[in-house]
């Protein structure tokens, strides 16, 4: 197997995630796209771990999973808070920082 096939798969997933983060209106879906990005990073880490024959990449993948769990927890809490104040999860409506 080539290293690049995993890396390019990860790159594709990453860009799809970026597309989702920018284009989706629903806050929950934005968070899901962020998960996509994090996962592509994990694929990279594990692929490099296999490439170099060390375990560090896998350890960091585990750390990323843990961070992702924390991120989803806080992110969903924020979405909930937005929903409570704005009665919607459409983040287009959250533009109080408009210049």
């Amino acid at each position, binding site marked *: *197997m*080539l290293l690049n096939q*995993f890396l390019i798969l990860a790159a594709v997933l990453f860009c799809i995630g970026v597309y989702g983060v*920018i284009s989706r209106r629903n806050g929950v879906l934005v968070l899901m796209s962020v998960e996509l990005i994090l996962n592509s990073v994990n694929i990279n880490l594990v692929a490099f771990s296999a490439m170099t024959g060390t*375990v560090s990449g*896998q350890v960091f993948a585990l750390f990323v999973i843990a961070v992702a769990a924390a991120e989803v*927890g806080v992110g969903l809490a*924020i979405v909930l808070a937005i929903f409570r104040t704005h009665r919607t999860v459409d983040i287009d409506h959250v533009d109080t920082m408009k210049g």
Partner: protein
Amino acid sequence: MTGMLVAAATANADAPVYVAQNVAFGIIAAMMIYSAVRLVTTANVVHAASYLVMVLAGAAAQFILLGAEFVAITQVLVYIGAIVVLFLFGIMLTKSPMDAQEKASRDNWKVAAGVGVVMLGVLIYGLLDGFGRSKLPADLAPTRVETVSDAIFSSYLVPFEAISLLLLAAAIGAIVISKRD
């Protein structure tokens, strides 16, 4: 992806070619990309969550292909078992539309697509330029869980503790942010 497959198969004639793995990779990768695309385009939030499950499961399968079994299992347990459920709760609590009655994508999807394509181009160019045809080791034996745990609890003990603190802080933060006051 098929092109990559062919390239991999014909890359080095005398090296053993793991056709089965490459085929598996191709199938899983195709499924992942399809699910990911559907995830960011579907109007139905619950469908999006199930596509997310597909992508995550695919990633877990790729981890197994790469010999990282423990990470794969953790991926299934934590991501699919916990995080997706959390997402479903989030969808439920925010009363998101269960059917496609609201336009879920922004009008400026073209901007997003443009950014995505530019990024993909840069990334793929960089990857092909940087790693070209470097091959993974032929004998990808599964990593023993013991090795992973040894690394976590010796070399990476401090990051591990930091992560546990981060989780605690996140748990408290989530409670504080979302509590009714």
